[in-house]
């Protein structure tokens, strides 16, 4: 009964302190930015805001939500996230189903598997990929944001492992009843793999929403930027030349409260999805990884 000793009780108190501090360190920056976004701009610009808003108001949010550039970028991000997640999930589900078969059923299975795994180990890098996208005339279209990352090999392997764990008898019974492989996939495998599909979809949603560099590379016209790229140029690079020629807009953008509001709205979808994601991923992902 080690946990009744004085030394262990002392450790427990210390341990709780460390854990609480670590937890706070991870959440405080977000609370800080939230406090700035709800403050009046004078105290915010003077760096007087800590973790609580000073002179509470929502002006920065009304400004942000009335900014047509911000709204357009927001909806482009929504579009690419929906389209990208749908594409990725359909492509990797179909492929993972085929790869989950034994090589006695699908003779070329291992050739396909290596075909995909090789690109995890060796890639062309930024510039050759950029040239391929440009030569396909995908520049400045939403397809440049969706297609290059559509085949997520790692997620495909996870899904394949889930499919492999599905009892073979179910499939055999369906095949004897005259079902084809498409029916087996959609009526037998998919319903059983919903937890895994949900986890991977949520990861894909978060990944597409957060992606910013592909926008910077493949989109030349700032009007087609997704939100993360738009905010990258406004907040981090502060490259106002790409934004607008209207000096009044420049004035708004340079305000700290408006920046904070933009950052917060940008993070909001992930913050909202996160609780659902977390409930799933401890089970969904770790099981998938341990199964091997």
């Amino acid at each position, binding site marked *: 009964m080690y946990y009744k000793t004085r030394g262990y009780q002392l*450790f427990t108190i210390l341990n709780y302190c460390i854990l609480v501090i670590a937890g706070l360190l991870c959440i405080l920056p*977000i609370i800080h930015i939230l406090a700035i976004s709800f403050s009046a701009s004078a105290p915010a610009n003077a760096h007087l805001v800590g973790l609580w808003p000073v002179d509470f108001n929502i002006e920065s949010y009304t400004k942000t939500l009335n900014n047509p550039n911000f709204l357009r970028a927001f909806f482009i991000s929504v579009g690419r996230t929906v389209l990208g997640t749908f594409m990725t999930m359909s*492509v990797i589900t179909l492929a993972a189903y*085929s790869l989950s078969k034994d090589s006695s059923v699908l003779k070329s299975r291992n050739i396909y598997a290596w075909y995909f795994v090789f690109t995890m180990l*060796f890639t062309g890098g930024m510039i*050759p990929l950029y040239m391929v996208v440009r030569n396909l005339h995908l520049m400045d279209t939403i397809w440049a944001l969706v297609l290059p990352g559509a085949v997520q090999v790692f997620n495909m392997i996870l899904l394949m492992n889930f499919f492999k764990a599905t009892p073979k008898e179910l499939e055999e019974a369906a095949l004897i009843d005259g079902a084809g492989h498409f029916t087996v996939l959609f009526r037998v495998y998919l319903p059983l793999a919903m937890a895994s599909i949900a986890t991977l979809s949520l990861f894909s949603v978060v990944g597409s929403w957060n992606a910013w560099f592909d926008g910077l*590379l493949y989109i030349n016209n700032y009007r087609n930027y997704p939100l993360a790229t738009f905010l990258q140029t406004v907040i981090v690079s502060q490259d106002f030349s790409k934004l607008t020629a209207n000096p009044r807009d420049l004035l708004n953008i340079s305000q700290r409260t408006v920046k904070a509001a933009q950052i917060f709205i940008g993070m909001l979808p992930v913050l909202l999805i*996160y609780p659902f994601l977390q409930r799933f991923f401890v089970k969904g992902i770790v099981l998938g990884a341990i199964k*091997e």
Partner: protein
Amino acid sequence: MNVKGTLVSRPWLKGFLKRTWPLHVMLIPAVVLQFIFGYLPLGGLVIAFKDFKPYDGIWGSKWVGLEHFRFMFEYPDSKKVIVNTVLIAGLKIILNVIVPFTFALLLNEVRRNSVKRTVQTLVYLPYFISWVFLGGILTDMLSADGMINSVLQNWFGIEPILFLASGNWFRFIVVVTDVWQQFGYGTIVYLAALAGVNPSLYEAAEVDGANRWRQTLSVTIPSLVPIIIVVATLAIGNILNAGFDQIFNMYNPLVYDKGDIIDTFVYRTGILNGQYSFATAVGVFKSLVGFLLIVVGYRVAYKLADYKIF
């Protein structure tokens, strides 16, 4: 020969058409996309050996052999960039093994499930937020009159520190904030492994009179050594990936000297200055080293911890 043809190849064809064609059809979208965006760029690697001019196209440009690679090793900035990359990535790899491991051990001692779950929820959070947003928040907090400096000044009387404008501080901040973003997620792996340790080992240790500290040293840590080896060796494949997203969103020309890494350097020379061939040569070098290290790391993980991917 004719007999063999009719006996062997036709049933195969029949079987193929009857049974497996849907499987091949299902693979088509992934195969095609992977060919276009995974394999075509590999063909584009030839421009590392050419003097690529966009106007002449890949085939029209002159061959220059290993010229760009030679230039890469002679160019004074390259050495600096490689040193920065290896130093920053190396520190990140070491700390990203130690910190999540320690944190998992601490979290494992918590018996109250509500506390455990709340702490986990909080520390996983930064992992899911883009460096664009984190970079925006952190650069603001770390500025000369930002929140961190005002706390340091008001509570400890320390003069403002230019965290993101001086090279050494920048390196330090990059490593610390990366660990801050990642450790919650890394903790999951070790927590899963801790749940798998055989409880009878602890009982036996307790009968032998081992206190909790002794149990941790003699049971918990030895049980986790294989998973630590796997995580650490596989991470070494990333020694040339020091974190493009993070550094790109936090750096500025003042700290190029100590904070510029291979990927940010390739972006600036390659995409912004249009030196496609040179930047691709640097990319090839990086890919090759990464590939070799992954193969070596995988071998080591297999030898020491009996780890297999497939």
